């Protein structure tokens, strides 16, 4: 698989897995009434997943291929008027 296809597939997998992690039933695994430094475990879990998603998205945003940018449609902006 070419490199950019791999990255694009990862970009697809990320939201899918992210969604799976915050949907029941997985999220209920951490719903166990345990406190860590006074804070319920599920708080760590939700914010942990959130953080991971952000970091992964950040990483992917660097790797995803830059599209050949479509030229700004003509007669747009100061140049054409």
């Amino acid at each position: 698989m070419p490199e950019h296809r791999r990255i694009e597939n990862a970009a697809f997998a990320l939201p899918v897995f992210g969604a799976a992690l915050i949907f029941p039933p997985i999220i209920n695994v951490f719903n166990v009434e345990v406190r860590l430094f006074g804070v319920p475990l599920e708080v760590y879990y939700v914010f942990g997943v959130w953080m991971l998603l952000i970091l992964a998205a950040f990483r992917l945003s660097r790797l995803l291929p830059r599209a050949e940018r479509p030229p700004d449609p003509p007669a747009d902006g100061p140049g054409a008027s």
Partner: protein
Amino acid sequence: MLTTNFVVGSAVAYVGLLFVLAYVSDYRARRGEARFLRSPLIYTLSISVYCTSWTFYGAVGSAARGGFEFLAIYLGPTIVFVGWWYILRKLVRIGRTLRITSVADLLSSRFGKSGRLAVLVTLIAVIGTTPYIALQLKAITTSIQVVGALNTSQAGGLSGASDATLALGIAAGMALFTILFGTRNVDAKEQHHGVVAAIAFEAIVKLVALVSVGVFVVFFASGGIEAVYDRAVEKGVDIFSGDTFGPRWVSILVLSGAAVICLPRQFQITVVENSDEDHLRTAGWAFPAYLMVMSLFTMPIALFGLSVMPAGANPDMFVLTLPLHAGQNFLALFAFIGGFSSATSMIIVATIALSIMVSNHIVMPIALRSPIGIGLGEGQDVSRLLLNSRRISIAVILFLGLVYFWLTGDSGALAPIGLISFAGVAQFLPPLIAALYWREATVKGAIAATAVGFAVWAWSMFLPSFQSASPAVASLMATGPFGIGFLRPEALFGLTGFDPLVHSVFWSLFLNSATLVLVSLMTRQSALERIQSTLFVDVFRRPSGEHANFIRGSATANDLFFVAQRVLGVERALGLFEGFARERGVSRAGIEPTPELIGRLERELAGSIGAASAHVMLSKVVSGDEVSLEEVMRIADETQQVIEYSQQLEQKSAELRSTAQMLQQANARLRELDSQKDDFLSQVSHEVRTPMTSIRSFSEILLSHDDLEPGQRDRFLSTIHNESLRLTKLLDEILDLSALERGEREWERVPVDAEETLSRALAVCEPLARQRSMAIEIGDRVRSATVSGDADRLAQVFINLLTNAIKYNDAPAPVVRVSSMRVRRNYVVEVADNGPGIAPPDRKRIFEKFSRGRRGGSPDEGGSGLGLAISMQIVRRMNGKLELADGTGRGACFRVTLPLVGGVAGRQPGVTEKAR
């Protein structure tokens, strides 16, 4: 001390600041200096218009009432943005290439530039957004009252003002700001740099304000995060999620994910105001990060509020009341400004987005269709009409929000109102996804789906929100319409036991999607729909900039310029035409009304008045001999047919080619056969000539010489006799062979004991061998072997092989070795000798006619050269094989392989069949 006057004064001052900011940004953007305004950072910040006062105040209230549930509102958008590569990027690309102005425009454009769909979506958007605007008004009025009332007892100024007046004042202020900055002109792409700058600024204000309150609560008022939770536990607050992560959690995740795409204001900011597709790259992670920071302190603030505030306190206002409670008036004021920012930014963007939709999709079509319409009317200025209709729309939409606020005034918390709005616009999601990915979705399907989803939503969610205001609605909810319990708004079709939100979201989205799929499958797309669907679904595959257009105009360039001028204004129309002329390398007067020009003009107009209106307007102008789309599609179909026909021709010609090739092969084979026949004839003549010559010469001698000795005479006669015998034999064999080859003769196939036949053949050859004083060595023999065939013929084969082996063996101690065996289901006989063997070049042709193993052998020992050929034919007829075994040292070894019959294989024994 914070007085109401002071609070209101600061709010006004803040709005003033926004005015200045928006004005400066607009001014600079106009002069092309606003590079900063087009940065990914500003884009991301402006997307956070998602966080309204609902987030600012409502999330804390929601956390206090429902624990973790508020997080779902932010996790849904997080998932959508993290996956920006797939949905958002496509939306933005489509929005940019096709100059989409709103979510209604997007759907209408995709589904054949349908005006009806656009109207429907616009109406739903207006109705769905109304509660949301009411929510903002409610949040602002409540917050002003909270900040003002706690601190002031003296009357005066605005402190005595009622809810209603306060809300009215706010609405008026917002309307003014929005009209000033949102409707300055009809823009090419509906981008509002001033507004976006103000929104981005507000995003920072609200974030800093909320984080400040959070830091204050956690680290100063409470003394650490653990203390917050400990205190909450002491007070008996449930800090765990319990059964939060159930159906309601899922519904809110889905709703919020849908809302961040479909909400008119989100669409406006994310798609329409986008100035560079690559900005999504940043927004994809930065917006989720913004959301996370926004919600980091929500839970602690809610828990702390629950622990320290008196029981009756409104949890929605904890963000304000906690600092006030602790005597931090300026923090409270800052928090108020933060909440005010979040509310105003939402109101501004939402009303702009909605006003564009209303003016483009409701006002414009009416104006175009009215008899005094502006389509071809004189002197009317379209852009002025657009701007005015937008200004009026903004005022009307805010007024609607106000009305909703008055009607539902005192009912409940902020969050449920927001969710009503989310669920309303979520009805756009199924058609929108279909628009992007499902080529065959039809406009009828989209209209039906949206209408059904909207109806279910209105019935099961929007209507119940008036419950507290209207006794009629309350009774309807309790018993159903006309007492039909089956249709009760919160237990549709008898589905009970669910949370009202889950119930409504499930039914509306399910019926929406189901209708979309079913109706799309049952109806057909029009030509324009097909074209548009390809443009949308394949937006990444098309070279950008190209735009399909099928209007062939009789309109002159002047007509077109006239239209452009009235919608876009003189300056931009001139710019467009001059730009076009420059590209063509002609003067402006020399512009031809080519389809390309019309296409570009349509796109340009669509950027201002929406795809449907632009299409109608241009069609009117160039209606002279417009090529209808149906016609175009028919032409396309014909082309398709021609292509298919030529493909068929190609196929046919390929067939012909292969036939010709086969003919050539057959011809070659015939020629070969012909030459074989000639060879055969010449060989036969040659073979016949030798004995004939000898007979003729001897008989001539006998005729001419009477004085021959009797002995000599007898010898001559016997030679003649021998030669004629040989000749007869040769002719017999030739006849035999040709009969065998043509398969004429009736052929007996009966079970034959091949072993016995072999013994018989050995017996026949015995004398010949003895005469040559050579030994026939008998090797391994099987006891008996039944094959199917003709015993005499088989014996002929064996005799031929044995005779050959004996005759041509010139070894000093000649030996012929015969053996037989069973190999699998075959009977194999091998006849080997220690004679000269067959030279490798002869191995191939040894079975051909008239070929002899050793050339030039003397006639008496030479056979006709047909023996092996005949044997070959016989064995073949018996389904067997005659071959020359691979040489093993000296001598030759012939092998006969015949299939055994007997047992199962011996079917139909004794049946004489005519072998053919």
